[in-house]
């Protein structure tokens, strides 16, 4: 019974269904939706960083490509939002494919710099492309999504769509890392040479996972555009890419549930620390340092280790002799 209750998927489903009972304020639903969107981004980036061992410091760019493809096409009323979302996936996936071919030949710092460069370029395009993007002041009038005629026009209504996506993508990712391709992915992280010697086409696999994580980001971007009905380039800058990396590390590299926890923690925290607005960057940096020093394996594994240690202690104390 306890085993059943501790099943993370059941806990997750119960949480998603129970939270709306406790929350009434629409503001909190918006916050929950943003957490869900960040989770999608972070789990995608974690596949790339935590599992495959390839860093991307330009992930906000794919998030932005998805958001702006959806935003531009639907604000102008040109296409159906769902079709726009699909087109966003095509745009981001193609961009990832094209830049991935040369960029993924690089390693470590060089890969970080190249993806950073890509992030800067997309950011500049968003700022300078006034005619389409609305420039620095942003893009207004993005309509809400609707599902089979039912408008998802309040944060509460959107909540179920966002968190269904989160649940499905968490499951998809967890299955992936435990599959043939997932093992090859984790293998190339440890030794690319040995993986190649076992017929793993490492270059292609890295490209595949890079594109996949860009698709996650693009989907998150489209949802984001329809959640806020307004987007501006500042949401897709380098700072946001760095925040995403922070979320991955804080939650735990190569940890699916850590992605959820990392995204939730670092989305909620700034809201409660609004007082420190100016020092947000400093706080992010400080959190990253503290986690790296005290919980280097991330929040989920770190806390699990602590809990296990305590559990063992108390168990040892109560075991009848």
């Amino acid at each position, binding site marked *: 019974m306890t085993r059943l209750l501790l099943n993370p998927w059941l806990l997750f489903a119960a949480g998603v269904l129970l939270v709306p009972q406790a929350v009434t304020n629409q503001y909190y639903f918006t916050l929950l939706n943003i957490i869900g969107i960040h989770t999608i981004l972070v789990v995608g980036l974690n596949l790339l960083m935590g599992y495959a061992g390839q860093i991307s410091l330009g992930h906000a760019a794919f998030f932005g490509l998805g958001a702006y493809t959806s935003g531009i096409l639907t604000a102008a009323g040109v296409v159906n939002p769902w079709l726009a979302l699909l087109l966003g996936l095509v745009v981001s996936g193609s961009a990832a494919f094209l830049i991935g071919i040369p960029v993924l030949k690089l390693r470590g710092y060089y890969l970080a710099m190249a993806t950073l460069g890509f992030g800067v370029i997309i950011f500049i395009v968003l700022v300078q492309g006034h005619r389409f993007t609305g420039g620095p002041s942003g893009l207004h009038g993005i309509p809400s999504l609707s599902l089979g005629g039912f408008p998802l026009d309040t944060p509460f209504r959107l909540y179920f769509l966002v968190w269904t996506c989160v649940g499905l993508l968490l499951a998809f990712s967890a299955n992936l890392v435990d599959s043939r*391709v997932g*093992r090859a992915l*984790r293998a190339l992280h440890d030794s690319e040479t040995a*993986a*190649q010697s*076992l017929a793993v086409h490492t270059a292609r696999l890295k490209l595949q996972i890079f594109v996949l994580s860009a698709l996650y980001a693009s989907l998150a971007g489209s949802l984001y555009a329809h959640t806020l009905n307004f987007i501006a380039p500042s949401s897709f800058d380098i700072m946001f890419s760095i925040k995403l990396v922070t979320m991955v590390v804080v939650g735990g590299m190569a940890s699916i549930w850590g992605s959820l926890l990392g995204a939730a923690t670092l989305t909620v925290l700034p809201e409660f620390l609004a007082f420190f607005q100016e020092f947000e960057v400093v706080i992010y940096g400080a959190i990253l340092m503290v986690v790296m020093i005290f919980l280097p394996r991330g929040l989920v594994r770190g806390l699990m280790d602590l809990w296990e240690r305590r559990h063992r202690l108390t168990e040892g104390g109560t075991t009848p002799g």
Partner: protein
Amino acid sequence: MPPGRVKAVIGPNGAGKTTLFNLVTGFLIPDAGRILFQGEEIQGEPAHATAARGIARTFQLVQLFDHLTVLENVMVGRHRLTRAGMLAGALRLPRARREDAAIRRDAWEALEMVGLAVRAHQPAAALPLGLKRLLEIARALAAQPILLLLDEPASGLDPVETERLGEMILDLKARGVTVLLVEHDMSLTMEVADDIAVLNYGRLIAEGPPRAIQRHPEVIAAYLGTDWQG
């Protein structure tokens, strides 16, 4: 190289033994010359493509997937013989699940054969060196190679482990696997090899059955030394 035999390559350090391995397995591209495998030219092919043909190898410095479990390491060895793609695996399609179950079963069998099954769920990094070498060989064998290249498999092994390694190589040969062996342990080499090639500074100075090699004057001068008592 004739199939189903064990060939050893020996020579002093820097003779080009590991370079030979890297050329055959696609990790280095030759400046000139051809490498034939089953009648096809394979020089210049990337390493993963060479591996896909059925050429497996181990490394002089053991290269395991440290964060994967012992079992998962061997499961990656089955990569060459399996097909399921990213989507099939992530969506847990019946085809992919069946294939994954087969991979797991084969990997278990391989671990039981080398006596590593009790450690199946430990991370590979936790094994002592002797078992790491054993695991690396088991992983290469999981790919059911036609040609297996072993790069100094006995270095770091104690005498008992070395003996077991020798039995393993002979067992492979009995199963029709062709083995190319680089080894400094001469008694092991003499015991398992059908043929020995001697390299010195990238040049082949002698080739033949162990007995002939032991008496070859140039080999004794370059490598074995005069006090070698085979």
